[in-house]
């Protein structure tokens, strides 16, 4: 019927009470907020995007040009070059910086981490979300505490243990640490997903003769699959971006450096031109951004699952 007239009534309501000052205040506030809102949006976009644009731009300009005209954000097209990328990716033997090797190392560590984290977290989160057992409350509290605990406290003994066992320089050892650190986050995310699957579906499966194991593999897991994928991507991002433990464990072995470690180590030296390292930054940033945009929606929902309930 008349949503329009209803809306009009509402607008007039304050005037009807004769509160003219309120109306004008309402009026200018609406205008100020209307403008301020766009100011905030434009500023926020500039501030978030500018560093990435700068990174991308510098990766395409020759270092000499950057030093001559450092403030230019719109360089001429002839100036641009991709030689920085070939230099940063090539192996040190052929005069490059070896980022291809770093990418391989990071990919290995991240994939191993994702695989084992999911292997442990899927059954674990299912158990926490669905089953009651002695100590389940205590266990989920411990996981939360682990998630919030200073990684630095773990760094000391793990560094010592890895040194003693000769595991420093081992990518598998690094992956082991990442697994332990990402399992709590993964459980937290997956638990939320499993909890949203209607129990009646599982009960229907049981009536049809499924065992608990079959309920998980045939009903719950397929339903949670998109969420499992997004959790996998999040864990991948954590492992790919991690820096502290890579620094502690791998710094002496250049051939084992991960992307983060490689970039940080090379940026400390003066010999490598900034533009080449910017190309390296782009190369290591693009995979996570692509993955993120693929999984954005599910990822955001998983991370903020608790927030909506307040």
């Amino acid at each position, binding site marked *: 019927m008349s949503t329009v007239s209803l809306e009009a009534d509402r607008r007039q309501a304050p005037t009807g009470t004769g509160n003219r000052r309120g109306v004008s205040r309402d009026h200018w506030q609406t205008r100020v907020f209307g403008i301020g809102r766009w100011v905030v949006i434009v500023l926020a976009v500039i501030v978030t995007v500018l560093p990435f644009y700068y990174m991308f731009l510098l990766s395409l300009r020759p270092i000499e040009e950057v030093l001559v005209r450092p403030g230019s954000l719109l360089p001429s097209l002839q100036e641009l070059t991709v030689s920085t990328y070939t230099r940063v990716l090539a192996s040190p033997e052929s005069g490059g910086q070896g980022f291809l090797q770093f990418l391989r190392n990071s990919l290995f560590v991240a994939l191993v981490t994702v695989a084992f984290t999911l292997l442990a977290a899927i059954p*674990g989160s299912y158990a926490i979300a669905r089953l009651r057992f002695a100590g389940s409350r205590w266990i989920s509290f411990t996981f939360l505490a682990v998630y919030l605990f200073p990684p630095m406290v773990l760094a000391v003994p793990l560094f010592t243990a890895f040194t003693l066992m000769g595991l420093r320089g081992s990518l598998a050892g690094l992956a082991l640490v990442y697994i332990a650190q990402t399992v709590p986050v993964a459980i937290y995310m997956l638990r939320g997903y499993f909890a949203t699957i209607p129990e009646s579906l599982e009960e229907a499966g049981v009536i049809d003769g499924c065992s608990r194991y079959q309920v998980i593999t045939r009903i719950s897991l397929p339903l949670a699959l998109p969420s499992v994928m997004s959790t996998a991507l999040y864990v991948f991002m954590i492992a790919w971006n991690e820096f502290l433990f890579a620094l502690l464990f791998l710094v002496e072995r250049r051939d084992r450096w991960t992307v983060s470690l490689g970039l940080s180590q090379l940026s400390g030296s003066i010999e490598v031109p900034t533009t080449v390292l910017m190309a390296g930054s782009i190369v290591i940033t693009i995979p996570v951004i692509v993955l993120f945009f693929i999984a954005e929606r599910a990822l955001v929902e998983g991370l903020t699952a608790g927030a909506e309930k307040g």
Partner: protein
Amino acid sequence: MPRTSSDRQPADPASQLAAPASGQLGRSTGGPYRDAEAEPAWRPRGRHTLAARDARAGLALISPTILVVAVIVIIPIIWTIMMAFQRVRLINVRRQGIFGHYTLRNFEVVFTAQGFWSSLLTTVIYTVGATVGSIGVGLLVALALRSRFRGRGFIRGLMLLPYVAPVVAVTFCWTTMLDPTFGLINVWGQRFLGWDAGIPFLSQPSTALATVIVFETWRYFPFAFLFITARLGALPVDVEEAARVDGATPWQRFRFVVLPQLGPVLSVLIVLRFIFTFNKFDDVYLLTGGGAGTEVVSVKVFQYLQSRGDLGSAAAQALVLAAALVILMLIYLRANRRSEESAL
């Protein structure tokens, strides 16, 4: 539906996962944080009930996780505590047994070290600044992007870039942008703002800490933005409509209707951001290396560990970090509870 133990499956461990469940699955309507005491009293207890089988399946399913976490997290924490009370160095750690000589010497080293208190203070300033900054900016941007327009989804995605990009890449980009000679900020500052010379933002004590806080705000406002946006999306519209009908101005609608409803998510964010920032190592280390008055406690732990190989002192310093964090969180939670009580 009464549960009986008619189902006499042998409880052999191998078949735990596959134990056929007749009747209903164990209900757990409230998440994992539901009290064990809240269990209905009529639930029969015994080896063969569904509840008992569920309990065994639960333990079996979670045990791999517990194993990993215990080996890589719990045991190391205990070892840290032990090392903190032993004079262990990387060179003599092999000879030092677990039941070696216990002493308070490490804490003496840590507490009397130059800059101990100042690094604690730096950590607190850094943490409070970055927490307030990132949540404040996140709130502002979330509100600005609240109502629909073309391209909003895309802009929301852009906002998350600083948070998902590798920290090493973004810190490298920032240090380059802030470079005193050819960094973009200094070039523009001299060209458009009339600065006399390039400002070494990250290496002079008067600006380094503030710059690190700005960086941290930039990098983590997306985190707050995400949570606040999710909450804003779930707010009931009719309350605000009612306020509008009653003649509340836009500011009043925000201040008295929207903001109170954001209270819970904001306090969760404060706790999370505070903890994560307090523990943070990479950002400060990569931006300044801990120089120019930005030496936070976690960077100090790293220095004991890496450059001195002094495991005992590193462990003691790490425990100080953890203890300081716990104390500050307790103070916060206490104050929070009091303010909630007084609000009632």
